[in-house]
């Protein structure tokens, strides 16, 4: 097969069994790879009702046919599993080199199941696949884990062989089952949302090392080469991509703030005085950037390594990205860049999702300021803007110490525990990202209906020409959800390929790399199929209409621009557009159109309100 390697590596951590299975061409054809094929594997093999932190849960590390080919901005991988944060489907994507390196080792998918009896790491180098003891790594922070592993491996591998290995690992947060723990990759990148670090930790798996010497074949070498050349030329002319090259996402906080849509003080406001400084993104770049750090095959290198002048925070880390700046910064009531970098650094090193961590702490800050969270539970004051309290709590959360054990369960749990569930600003237990939905109503619907929860990466913003008419926003929201399901399956980078940017290129890459000439309608149908299948997973896991909801603050209290998000109007319209019934369950006609079947019982589960 062109593009795909055609192999699945399966590891049973309970028994230590390893097997290599052939990848079915039908699966590739129908679900492309990545998020789509990973989901199909889970649906076929796993009951969505299982405990996400139990040995029955599976982790599917998935690449796509484009991974490792060098398709510009196509170097990502995705991890598909059941989320311990939401209880629903999880599919965070991550950049760096791990995806391509897994592919060069010879595998499209890595399926991890069961639970090791003691801490292990998985070593994959071509056919050499070993589970090795990792007691000595347990407890280490993510960068320290990577350094220790590289040191250990340097006994048998030279500098260049080490250079072509990737490491993904968990930090203490994942080990301790923090429900928003990340899987960290390649020195500071993260498969961040949904808490899959905790799933890895529940399996006693500290790290995965992958690399290999294999090749990826493309169907049409000359066509592929020309398409890349053309893309690079277009990319140099593109204004949006210029901003990505220069600033990554650092041009966004100032812009969001200026337009009044920057999540501030637990979404009580959409504007932060301190963030005026960010309106010139050069301020950020000049202050913390060390170098531009590209993912495999990406000419744009939007990711930036950063450093701050503080010996307590040695070395460099990745980011912070816009979402981290907002959730760990303005949303917690402060704006000093060094402080945001400290919080980002702590989250990266301990292996926690910066967005949900920020949303959880900002929720606790508001509970405290409102008098619902007594100071004796905390041991110290923690109002908005109290950075010292925040740093301390981030550390405590990762090891579940004192009040950290409460925060480790996620913001929804914290808010419910103190009797005010409405103060957690999230969807399906996952903290909402930076853009305040009251500034841009359709974003509210996108957060609410996202299969994984309050995430920004499964749909795009209606900022582009041809998409500004509010009457068409709903149509575009659905279109983008379906399209990005494919982008995450191929796998391309959402940052570069979202929305109208290069929409047609997906087809070109799939054709030149795999040789399969997908028609536009077929691609649209495939994206919709993936979205609906995720919905079926969630329904079976217990999702009801009530889970497609925004916090009351967003729908009932006009905090930003005097606007609210009219979910009572938008949600039925969205369900109808999707071909779902009034409870958000796909109709039999829709499922038939998509070639999906609903097992008997799914619908009954869904309607148990």
């Amino acid at each position, binding site marked *: 097969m062109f593009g795909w390697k055609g192999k699945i590596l399966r590891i049973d951590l309970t028994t230590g069994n390893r097997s290599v299975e052939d990848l079915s061409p039908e699966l590739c054809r129908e679900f492309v790879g990545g998020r789509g094929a990973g989901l199909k594997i889970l649906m076929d093999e796993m009951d969505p009702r299982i405990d996400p932190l139990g040995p029955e849960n599976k982790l599917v590390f998935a690449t796509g046919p484009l991974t490792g080919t060098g398709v510009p901005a196509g170097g990502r991988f995705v991890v598909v599993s059941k989320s311990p944060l939401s209880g629903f489907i999880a599919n965070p994507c991550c950049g760096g080199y791990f995806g391509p390196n897994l592919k*060069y080792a010879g595998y499209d998918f890595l399926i991890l199941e069961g639970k090791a009896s003691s801490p292990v790491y998985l070593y994959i180098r071509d056919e050499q696949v070993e589970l090795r003891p990792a007691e000595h790594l347990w407890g280490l922070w993510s960068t320290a884990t990577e350094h220790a592993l590289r040191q250990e491996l340097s006994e048998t591998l030279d*500098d260049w*062989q080490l250079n072509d290995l990737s490491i993904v690992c968990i930090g203490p947060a994942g080990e301790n089952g923090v429900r928003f723990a990340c899987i960290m990759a390649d020195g500071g990148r993260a498969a961040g949302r949904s808490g899959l670090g905790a799933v890895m930790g529940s399996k006693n798996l500290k790290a995965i090392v992958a690399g290999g*010497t294999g090749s990826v074949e493309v169907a049409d070498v000359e066509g592929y080469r020309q398409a890349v*050349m053309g893309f690079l030329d277009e990319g140099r002319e593109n204004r949006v991509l210029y901003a990505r090259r220069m600033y990554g996402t650092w041009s966004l906080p100032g812009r969001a703030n200026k337009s009044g849509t920057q999540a501030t003080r637990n979404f009580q406001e959409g504007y932060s005085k301190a963030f005026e400084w960010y309106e010139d993104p050069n301020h950020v770049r000049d202050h913390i950037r060390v170098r531009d750090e590209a993912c*495999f095959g*990406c000419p744009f290198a939007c990711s930036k390594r950063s450093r701050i002048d503080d010996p307590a925070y040695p070395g460099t880390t990745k980011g912070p990205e816009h979402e981290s700046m907002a959730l760990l910064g303005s949303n917690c009531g402060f704006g000093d860049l060094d402080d945001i970098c400290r919080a980002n650094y702590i989250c990266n090193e301990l292996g926690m999702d910066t967005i949900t961590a920020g949303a959880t702490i900002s929720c606790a800050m508001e509970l405290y300021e409102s008098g619902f969270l007594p100071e004796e539970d905390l041991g110290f004051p923690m109002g908005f803007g109290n950075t010292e309290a925040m740093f301390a709590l981030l550390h405590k959360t990762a090891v579940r110490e004192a009040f950290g054990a409460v925060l480790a369960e996620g913001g929804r749990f914290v808010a419910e525990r103190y009797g005010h569930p409405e103060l957690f600003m999230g969807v399906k237990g996952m903290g909402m990202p930076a853009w305040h939905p009251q500034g841009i109503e359709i974003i509210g619907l996108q957060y609410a209906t996202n299969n994984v929860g309050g995430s920004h990466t499964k749909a795009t913003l209606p900022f582009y020409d041809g998409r500004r008419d509010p009457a068409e926003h709903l149509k575009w929201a659905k279109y983008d959800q379906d399209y990005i399901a494919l982008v995450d399956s191929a796998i391309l980078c959402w940052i570069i390929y979202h929305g109208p940017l290069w929409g047609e290129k997906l087809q070109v890459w799939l054709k030149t790399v795999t040789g399969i000439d997908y028609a536009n309608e077929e691609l649209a149908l495939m994206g919709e199929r993936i979205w609906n299948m995720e919905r079926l997973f969630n329904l079976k896991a217990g999702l009801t209409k009530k889970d497609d909801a925004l916090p009351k603050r967003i729908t009932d209290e006009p905090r930003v621009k005097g606007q609210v998000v009219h979910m009572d109007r938008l949600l039925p319209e969205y369900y109808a557009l999707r071909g779902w019934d009034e409870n958000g369950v796909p109709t039999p006609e829709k499922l038939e159109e998509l070639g999906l079947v609903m097992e008997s019982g799914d619908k009954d589960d869904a309607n148990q309100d």
Partner: protein
Amino acid sequence: MRIKIDYAKCTGCRLCQVACSLQHTGSINPQRSRIRVFVGEDVCLPVIAGPYTEAACNSRGKVVINGLEVDGCVVCRASCPVKSAFREPDTGIPLKCDFCGDPPDPQCVKWCDPGALTLVDA
């Protein structure tokens, strides 16, 4: 002609390795590339394969590039018996940059979007 490397511009994307392996092997395999990028924390170092040398040398000293101290072996262009880079992974046959033919038309330079690689008169 020679290929000039500006370390400060390299982002570590390895498209040069993709381009090189595609040109020379017809498939994509960064480890069969005649150019390799060493990714450090603070700087990325593209290294272009030079001639094969039959014996390992003793020049294992440190060199400083853009403030980063690296092992001289890493940035050495030679293909040699003790180094895994610049040899075919399966057969061990040495690899050497040929500038993609005559006249020189190096694919790595064409694919290098950040401009870290440029073709200049020697």
